[in-house]
């Protein structure tokens, strides 16, 4: 640019006519545009590696904020705790009875009846909610039991939920968790310092039960032909402020407590909630784990520290990117309820510290006291963060730039495509010359507005439409496919075969047909731009916009999709040479869902990939997790478009 300013400045003959003066401005504009375009065309890919490197730096401590409580009313760990060995005794006895009951019967109704009678015994308004879930495998019958303890001091406008599933996600009876819930139900009635109601909730099976209960609590009624049918609730309390979900599938002595924060679609609770729970636990000397890992005080080297945190971060991003409910707390976020799950870890390799049940009880109590102190909803701290350890976080201001950098490459790419297709300016425009002894000026040809090309619209639209239609069709068919996959008990091999067939159909039939369609028609002429440029322009724009929009809602997913797909799209263009053709196809295929699944099944076996598909499909149909539809409606079609581009006319 500087170069140009100098030129412009030097171009000052004393008696330049008005016309030349007038021409200087458009000339400058063109020149600038030309160079911007040129630099973008050459260097727009640079954002991608920058973003990747930045992401790789995130595990370093410089980027981490020590978690601190922003809401002054919380005062975590400051209260005196009354949870004593007596209450612990109650926990243990309840655990035994729960195990006993679980061994006797399988019916949720009886479980619920047991819980209800116990809660009634504490003078609570307890009742049972039955629900039925109709799935491919047939109807699942479930029952939630819950009791409300009215706060002595409060007016019943606010409530705190303490829930636990009857079985943890391992299918094991969550005896200790239920024990704690019942023990606390007994415990809270002994004190009058509570200003919020408590709702004690035991769900089975979960998290479906939690969904049924939450919808009923907020006055929704199931439609006549919904998969999930449930009863309305008999008693209500006020607006639920916080929810604490307990999963202790053990015998009361644990190595650590794990916190599960990310909810449905990766939505997070307010950071204050997490920090409070973590502080209360650590105040009691309980090691707090995140994704099964407890971060030790010191590491033997920075490298190991980096690896440790990178590992946790990877786990964290993985679970957030999937956005599937990992436990009951995941479903609360939709109702603006801050929720978290505490899950006990039996053993951690290398850790011999044991946590006593009383410690856990006191930690839970002091967390409850903190929530009880709150006068308002939690609103001081972040809702957007990434956690490298249980006690620190990366705020949005730090992690959002790399996410954007990754995807913004595509936007620039589409811009470049637009320019190239429209106005192929090859060289920098020369300055306009004055015609001798005349008031007029001859301007350089590049300044002319007549050297533009028209952009073909029909083919691009057809391409985009067909690809998206494919995705939509796949989404529509998915329940059937899954039904077949699950019912005609197809072994993994056949499943793989099935997937291969689908792939073959798509890549062997559909894409070639499209390319045939383009045959001869998409080529560039003197006056028309080549169709592939426009197609790529639209595709890049759509994908870039989608990923950037995604980056605020679910940054992990945005990253996970951007990393493979961005380079593939940068490369994608019609080519004559077979090598580059192959390279592009491979890149695109690796970026495609099927490619990703394939990679996963190569790494961790076919089962996990299959499981992932099923879970994401269920997550969508049962809880409204939109990973599945997003991939099928946006991501995969665009990937197909990429394939088409490769085969188009130059």
């Amino acid at each position, binding site marked *: 640019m500087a170069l140009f300013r100098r030129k412009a400045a030097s171009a000052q003959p004393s008696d330049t006519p008005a016309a030349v003066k007038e021409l200087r401005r458009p000339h400058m504009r063109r020149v600038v545009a030309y160079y911007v375009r040129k630099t973008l065309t050459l260097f727009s890919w640079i954002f991608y590696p920058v973003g990747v490197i930045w992401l790789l730096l995130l595990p370093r401590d410089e980027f981490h904020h020590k978690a601190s409580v922003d809401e002054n009313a919380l005062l975590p760990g400051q209260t005196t705790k009354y949870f004593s060995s007596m209450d612990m005794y109650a926990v243990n006895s309840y655990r035994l009875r729960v195990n006993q009951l679980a061994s006797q019967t399988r019916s949720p109704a009886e479980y619920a009846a047991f819980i209800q009678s116990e809660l*009634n015994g504490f*003078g609570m308004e307890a009742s049972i909610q039955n629900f039925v879930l109709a799935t491919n495998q047939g109807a699942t019958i479930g029952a939630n039991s819950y009791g409300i303890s009215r706060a002595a001091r409060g007016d019943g406008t606010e409530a705190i939920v303490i829930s636990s599933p009857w079985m943890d996600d391992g299918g094991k009876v969550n005896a200790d968790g239920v024990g704690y819930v019942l023990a606390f139900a007994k415990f809270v009635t002994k004190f*009058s310092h509570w200003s919020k109601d408590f709702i004690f909730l035991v769900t089975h099976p979960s998290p479906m039960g939690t969904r049924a209960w939450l919808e009923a609590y907020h006055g929704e009624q199931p439609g006549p032909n919904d998969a999930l049918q449930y009863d309305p609730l008999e008693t*209500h309390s*006020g*607006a639920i402020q916080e929810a604490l979900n307990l999963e202790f599938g053990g015998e009361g002595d644990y190595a650590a407590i794990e916190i599960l924060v990310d909810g449905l679609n990766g939505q997070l609770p307010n950071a204050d909630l997490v920090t409070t729970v973590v502080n209360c636990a650590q105040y009691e000397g309980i090691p707090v784990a995140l994704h099964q890992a407890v971060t030790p005080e010191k590491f033997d080297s920075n490298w190991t520290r980096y690896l440790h945190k990178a590992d946790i971060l990877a786990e964290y991003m993985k679970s957030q990117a999937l956005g599937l409910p990992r436990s009951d707390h995941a479903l609360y976020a939709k*109702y*603006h309820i801050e929720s978290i799950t505490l899950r006990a870890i039996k053993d951690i390799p290398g850790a011999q510290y044991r946590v006593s049940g009383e410690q856990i009880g006191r930690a839970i109590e002091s967390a409850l006291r903190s929530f009880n102190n709150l006068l308002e909803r939690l609103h001081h701290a972040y809702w957007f963060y990434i956690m490298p350890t249980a006690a620190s976080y990366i705020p949005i201001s730090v992690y959002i730039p790399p996410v954007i950098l990754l995807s913004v490459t595509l936007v620039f790419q589409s811009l470049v495509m637009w320019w190239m297709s429209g106005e192929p300016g090859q060289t920098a425009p020369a300055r306009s010359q004055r015609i001798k002894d005349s008031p007029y000026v001859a301007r350089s040809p590049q300044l002319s507005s007549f050297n533009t090309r028209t952009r073909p619209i029909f083919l691009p639209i057809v391409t985009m439409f067909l690809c998206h239609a494919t995705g939509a069709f796949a989404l529509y068919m998915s329940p059937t496919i899954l039904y077949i996959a699950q019912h005609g008990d197809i072994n993994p091999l056949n499943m793989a075969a099935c997937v291969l067939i689908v792939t073959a159909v798509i890549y062997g039939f559909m894409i070639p047909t499209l390319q045939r369609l383009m045959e001869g028609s998409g080529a560039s002429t003197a006056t028309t731009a080549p169709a592939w440029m426009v197609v790529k322009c639209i595709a890049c724009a759509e994908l870039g916009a989608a990923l950037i929009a995604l980056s605020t809602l679910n940054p992990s997913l945005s990253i996970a999709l951007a990393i493979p797909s961005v380079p593939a799209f940068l490369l994608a263009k019609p080519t004559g040479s077979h090598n580059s053709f192959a390279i592009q196809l491979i890149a695109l295929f690796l970026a495609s869902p099927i490619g990703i699944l394939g990679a996963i099944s190569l790494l961790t076996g076919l089962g996990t990939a299959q499981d992932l598909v099923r879970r994401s499909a269920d997550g969508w149909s049962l809880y409204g997790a939109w990973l599945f539809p997003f991939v099928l409606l946006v991501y995969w079609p665009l990937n197909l478009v990429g394939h088409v581009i490769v085969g188009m006319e130059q």
Partner: protein
Amino acid sequence: MVFSQGHWWWASLLCLVWLGQAQAGVAITDESYNEDLRFTQLPDGKVLSEFKFIRRIGPLALAKVRDNHYSLLPRSVGEIVQTFGVEELHLTFTQGTWNHQKWGYSPLGAAAGVQLWSWFNTSSVDKQWKGLTHALAGLFCASLNQIDQSNTAQPLLSFLPEGDYGEELPQDVLELRYGSLPHEAVCTENLTPWTKLLPCQTQAGIASLFNAYRLFDGHYHSMGTHIRPIITDDAGRGMEFVQTLSVVLNPLRLDNRKDWSLSSLFERKIASACALASDTKVVVTVPSHPASTLNSPPLSVLTDSHERLSAHYNLDLSTPKDTDFGVTWEDSKVDHGVNRSRWYIDAHRYQTGYGGERGGLAVDLRNHHPTADLDIIYFEAIPWYLKLYLHTLRAETAADASHEIIKDMYYQPAIDRGRPAVLEMKMTLPANSTTTLHLEFDKAYIKYTEHPPDANRGFDIGAAVITFTAIPESPPSPHDIPPQVRIHTETVLVSLPTPDFSMPYNVITLTCTLMALYFGSVFNMLTRQYQPVIVKG
């Protein structure tokens, strides 16, 4: 200080003295003061204590009050009644919610927070109402002055006058105002001025049990001030001024026993009877049960229709100091079941929907009577910032659809910042069924100065009031239950869209910048020249 000088002129007053004495004579007063204290042990072991301080001011004393001579009636109350033309006044401060299901029905039950309704006999009622709320705010150290036009309602059916008015129909001549502050925290600073109104304050009589620590440590605490006209035996309109306090304490909370005594509940005993009280009753009511024994021998014991055993005591100056009452139980078994011995209707209100844009209210109205359909009046005053949609109002019932639930409806739409939406309905609840009312609303965007200091807490929607006439067999003793029974639903907390209060300046700046950009571009367009340059040859 100055000691009074000058007896020099008093001799000349003597003539007046005779004159004065002639009309004075011996003092005849028609005022009376009674104290009434009832302990009821509820099935779940909690103890409900109901204090009543009843003052009856006869026509003569009332005439004296009219020209500002107060003896039994507190001056502050008398002044308020006269200045603002109050015919009837009912003010309650309540903490916690009365648990209808377990505790049955209490005549002293009230909505959480502050509830005030009053019948006026003046013109310009709105002005007087404003003055009344401000005066009461000053008297009871409460923020009653926040009851303004925007949360004042005029119910038609729910709050009928409760005094004796003789022949005349009070609704025709009087005007009613109703206001409530659901989120008013009740505490000692309200109790203290309230007790100062008592004739014996807290130094004698049953009020000597008041121990703020214990009173506010209960599950339910309601403090009432009621004024109503009465017609005493000698023809003429008198006035009744009743102060009530009811509190539910839980003897089981610490040691798991349901024994109780005054000293265990209040850490106090009744010092002595109030000298001014002509009659002091104490009634202890427990579920009649062989395992229970009364701590002190009562005057009389009688059992009511619901197997409840009530022991009656009388206090006077002769009773020994520090008398203690109570019950000792052999077992500690309590019944947490639902108690419907005395009544058949309960109501629960809760919020439906989620998100910041719209929401709804749902009310479960239950009629537990096995056979009889019961008529009720449902009253609800909803603040203006919840935009009601009346067409979304629907009543669902499990009973057969032949019943027409809503008999009659009176609806007054809200005016922004002016008045609340008032909904009053005559309903018939089918026997042994649950009726659910649904109502939906939009949440308004309110000005950022209209948000309370704790903006992120939300807004409390005052309790709905269900009024019905207690059906004959339910009340055992007619005297403690007014013909109209009133129960209150829960308060509901609604969160409106809340701005980030750290941001207003940024918002202003951003908006201004946008406008500036727009202006700048337009201005440039207007003042730039675009003209073709023709190139020849």
